[in-house]
């Protein structure tokens, strides 16, 4: 495996650009951070130089050129021969000031770096979330909700980490490496050639280790994820495990998977374990070389070309150079590892919403009539079968239509085309005499209210939930809608009434109550067309009938389309559709269907005849 496959790099460039668009207001701090870091690094690299000079002074053989310059040119004093207190104190103070500057800039860089990377992550999360809000149903189907959650949390966190590294460490280390190298040559002259040999050696070893280890880690991380998934399965399915007395079987299964993970991890980490000793070998080599040849050079030139202070500084630079190289490899790994997360994030960001409003959208609707003209639909191009096959249907405004049929017969698919939750693959759907694709999407969906089968209340008060239907609804309107949906009675019975807090997923109200609140929420839209997708399955038959009666009485203009399991829910509709295999198998009134469809009769008898 290559570290950067060529094709990947090109695609990666576009991808990084897309992500970088989320930096926005944190651009300033993102640029400032590396600058601040550079000052810190410069100071850190100068400190050993000053120390070397100081040591030379302490050694007392001769003054460094820099000392002459400061004391004779700048301060206008004559220097005594040999060591002297003022010189030492001067250098000491200089050192403290430099460390202070380095501290100041390092601290500032730490702060701006934190702000920039956290801000970048914040914007990324915002962009992702906002993007998902533009998704249509078919986009949502493509990404599972769990994967979207991971992208918004874990993946963004990975990118944030890499970004912080990028603006701080990824600047610091190469800079440190180069600057220290320069300083090493300035101080050590030919002695610094040792680094020309050692640095490439360490570089090659480090990067071959990475090269070897990264694919291993990628693989084992996938295995590790799967191991954790299987633990989760076990925990969730504990009742099944215990019922079938499969504890030992589960233990064996786990042991096999866990030891596989262990072996792979160990193999990878054993290779990685070469890092430390290699680094140490390089440091040791530098030390020995410096001592051997340094001592020769000092004695041979009587301390002119080289001296003890420089020797000490050279060792410090050596450490900084090798350490920086090591860090560069760490940065490289972190950033490469985060590319996968970056890819998953940009996958969401580039997803095109499948449904958008036309350029000049219609913002009015004549009536609530619905027409299907030769409509066929498939969920994806890859799907083998059409979910809907050549549907022709006319529903007049104000009619009540019932839809029955087994699971998988595309009842839900049919109604989702009306409010353009999906677009028809062939043919067209007309609402109020106009193609649904000519309306403004928001306007269309406000006019066509759908109570989904998989419906949800959100954490918040009942009032807040109801106002999803209409944010401006008055309390009276809320009560009115709840009365129609037969929800007012039980809501009033709660101690906090309409201010009762609904837990996540509506877990503190019963299934029937939840369904009735969802209907009330949809009624608040005052829609031209109301679609109930199996929305009263948990409501008792009497209440169900009362809701239907209320809808008929108080919303006569509204077209009502009801998908149901119970024949009783649709018996009195103007039209009943019997769906089978993505087609309308039968259509007619209750009496007509009793006569024409044996399936309908069978179901009717099994459900509605009390002996």
């Amino acid at each position, binding site marked *: 495996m290559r570290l950067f496959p060529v094709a990947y790099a090109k695609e990666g460039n576009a991808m990084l650009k897309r992500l970088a668009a989320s930096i926005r207001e944190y651009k300033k701090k993102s640029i400032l951070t590396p600058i601040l870091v550079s000052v810190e690094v410069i100071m850190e690299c100068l400190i050993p130089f000053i*120390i070397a000079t100081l040591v030379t002074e302490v050694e007392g053989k001769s003054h460094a050129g820099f000392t002459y310059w400061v004391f004779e040119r700048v301060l206008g004093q004559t220097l005594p021969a040999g060591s002297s207190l003022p010189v030492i104190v001067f250098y000491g103070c200089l050192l403290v000031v430099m460390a202070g500057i380095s501290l100041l800039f390092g601290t500032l860089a730490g702060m701006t*770096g934190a702000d920039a990377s956290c801000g970048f992550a914040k914007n990324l999360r915002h962009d992702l979330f906002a993007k998902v809000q533009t998704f249509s149903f078919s986009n949502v189907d493509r990404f599972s909700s769990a994967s979207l959650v991971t992208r918004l949390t874990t993946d963004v966190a990975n990118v944030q980490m890499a970004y912080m590294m990028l603006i701080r460490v990824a600047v610091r280390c190469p800079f440190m490496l180069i600057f220290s190298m320069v300083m090493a040559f300035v101080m050590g002259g030919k002695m610094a050639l040792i680094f020309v040999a050692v640095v490439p050696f360490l570089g090659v070893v480090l990067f071959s280790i990475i090269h070897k280890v990264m694919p291993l880690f990628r693989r084992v991380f996938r295995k590790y994820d799967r191991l954790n998934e*299987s633990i989760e399965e076990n925990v969730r399915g504990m009742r099944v495990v215990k019922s079938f007395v499969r504890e030992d079987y589960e233990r064996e299964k786990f042991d096999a998977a866990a030891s596989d993970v262990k072996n792979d991890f160990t193999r990878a980490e054993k290779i990685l374990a070469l890092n430390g000793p290699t680094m140490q070998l390089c440091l040791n080599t530098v030390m020995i070389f410096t001592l051997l040849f340094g001592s020769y050079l000092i004695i041979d030139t009587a301390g002119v070309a080289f001296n003890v202070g420089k020797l000490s500084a050279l060792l410090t630079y050596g450490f900084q150079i090798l350490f920086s190289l090591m860090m560069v490899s760490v940065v490289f790994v972190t950033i490469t590892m985060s590319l996968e997360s970056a890819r998953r994030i940009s996958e969401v960001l580039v997803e095109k919403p499948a449904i958008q409003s036309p350029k000049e959208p219609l913002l009015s609707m004549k009536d609530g009539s619905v027409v299907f003209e030769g409509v066929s639909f498939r969920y994806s191009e890859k799907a083998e079968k059409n979910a809907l096959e050549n549907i022709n249907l006319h529903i007049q405004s104000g009619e009540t239509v019932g839809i029955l049929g087994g699971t998988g017969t595309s009842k839900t698919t049919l109604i989702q085309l009306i409010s353009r939750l999906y677009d028809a693959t062939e043919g067209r759907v007309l609402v109020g005499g106009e193609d649904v694709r000519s309306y403004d999407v928001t306007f269309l969906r406000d006019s066509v209210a759908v109570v989904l089968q998989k419906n*949800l209340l959100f954490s918040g008060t009942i009032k807040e939930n109801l106002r999803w*239907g209409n944010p401006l609804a008055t309390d009276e309107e809320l009560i009115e809608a709840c009365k129609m949906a037969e929800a007012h009675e039980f809501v009033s019975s709660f101690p906090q009434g309409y201010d009762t807090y609904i837990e996540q997923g509506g877990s503190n109200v019963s299934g029937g109550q939840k369904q009735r609140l969802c209907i009330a929420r949809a009624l608040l839209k005052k829609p031209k067309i109301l679609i109930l997708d199996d929305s009263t399955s948990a409501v008792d038959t009497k209440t169900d009938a009362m809701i239907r009666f209320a809808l008929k009485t108080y919303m006569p203009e509204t077209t009502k389309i009801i998908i149901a399991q119970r024949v009783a829910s649709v018996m009195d509709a103007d039209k009943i559709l019997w769906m089978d295999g993505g087609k309308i198998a039968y259509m007619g009134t209750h009496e007509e269907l009793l006569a024409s469809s044996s399936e309908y009769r069978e179901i009717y008898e099994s459900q509605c005849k009390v002996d």
Partner: protein
Amino acid sequence: MNKKQTKKGTIARLLSLLFGFYPVLLPVVIALIITTAAVGAMPSLFMNRVIDLIDGALRNGTPYAEVAPAIIQVVLVLVCLYAVSLTASFFQNRLMAVITQGFLYKLRKKMFDGMQSLPIRYFDTHKSGDIMSYYTNDIDTLRQMVSQSFPQLLISAVTLLTVFSIMVYFCLWLALLVVVGVILMTVLARKVGGGSAKYFVRQQAAIGKTEGFVQEMMNGQKVVKVFCHEKESIADFDAINDALYEDSRRAHRYANILMPLLNNIGNIIYALVAIVGGILLVTGARNVSLSGMAISIAVIVPFLNMTKQFSGNVSQVSQQINSIVMAMAGAGRIFALLDEKPETDEGYVTLVNAREENGVLVETAERTGIYAWKHPHREEGTVTYTRLQGDVRLFDVDFGYTPEKTVLHNVDVYAKPGQKVAFVGATGAGKTTITNLINRFYDIADGKIRYDGININKIKKADLRRSLGIVLQETNLFTGTVLDNIRYGRLDATREECIAAAHLAGADDFITRLPEGYETVLRQNGANLSQGQRQLIAIARAAVAAPPVMILDEATSSIDTRTEALVQRGMDNLMKGRTVFVIAHRLSTVRNSNVIMVLEKGHIIERGDHESLLAEKGKYYQLYTGAFELE
């Protein structure tokens, strides 16, 4: 026990666990670490010798050739030491990889193995997300601890000790200066580190909140679309997102500051040592040291290097503190899991395959389809065999999940062999609780349960459960092929038997239409199947086990009425000759039961067959005619 003691206990336990897993290897690694660290701290001594030689040569004007042998000798000793240290480091690093991964593996296994024997109560009272985090987050903190913090602490301790001794050997005054500086460094590190820890905790909470919100919104994305609620939900998200930004920004600021702070304080100490050393040298002050050396350039230069080493190690340790604190918390939670009391089992009656010989039951090894309870009587020293028939009776049973709250009151149930017994009632009426008692997921508080006349407490739990098949409303499938999932019911079932079971459950039809048929791999609890299809597989899984008694807890709730009619035929076959307990919302499912019990608030309020209950015109009648809403 106070907090500090617990922490100490946790460390001690962690160490003893580690030693227990690697009684030989671990001391070897520790010895290697000490060798590496001690040798690594010594070069200053050699540097001192070499500089001393150089200094002497310069002062006396000796040519290099004369000093060379002495210098080379010193360097050679150093090379040897390096060789030792390198070898030690090489093996230590490799062994550490083995130990870390091995430790994690053994710990995981210990946790998982222990978890399998925990009672269902544990899983009912702990969120699966919390349990998972022991295996992921907490284990991760321990990995960090074992692979990095422990060795780093050891290395730093040895290095600090060695370096400090050498410092004192060279010059006491400078050594004291370094110590004072380092104390200051530690104090600051704790302050900044504390601030960082505080905000990291807050960041964690903010992440949790964001995750919760995102999860809710992503799950409800289609509802958001239907109500055109996009703008509002973005605004809500932004508020939470901004709060997260604030906390994480603070946390990272502190964390980012720590490094430059420690580094530069290190630099300042370094500078101070240079100044003070220089002053001491220039003024010719009297040195106090173990070696009795006078202050010279050969003392100061290595001393400067040691100062760097010293402060470097202290800052290394400071950076480990955060991860050590986190690891201790993680270890505490893991130990709590390990300390959970396993399910107890005093049962001694076992389930065996049997064969009838001349009207007498004889135990056999092979599957005969006939089972018997093997009941040893210790006092008489005899063994009796009772044929398993599926006669389950509950007499006057009371039960509560907690002692304060009784959820079942005086429940009597008599299920004769081959009968279908149904429970009907609202959520929380106690239907599932009754089945939990029959398979002893929970134990009754009062009353008795008899299985074929045997007290179920005397039956080994594994055998009791083997004799009962369960299909639950919430279907749990495991990662693996469809076939693997069906075979979960009986591990030695052949492919043909599994397919036959799928036929029986009415699942064969859709399975053969899956891309790979029975070999289709299911992931994430069969995410690509509908709830109804999952239930069909679960029914097939129970069918292949073919236990004598079945419990169907809302087993067909997600199968539409038409498919259910198809499944019903298979289910009828499955139930033939078996005692079956059925829990269902849909009354059409329970209509043909021999006995239907209507439960309300833990009491059985009506019992009888369909016709007699309808004639009674009570609760069942109301439910059946739809005049009453369940849940």
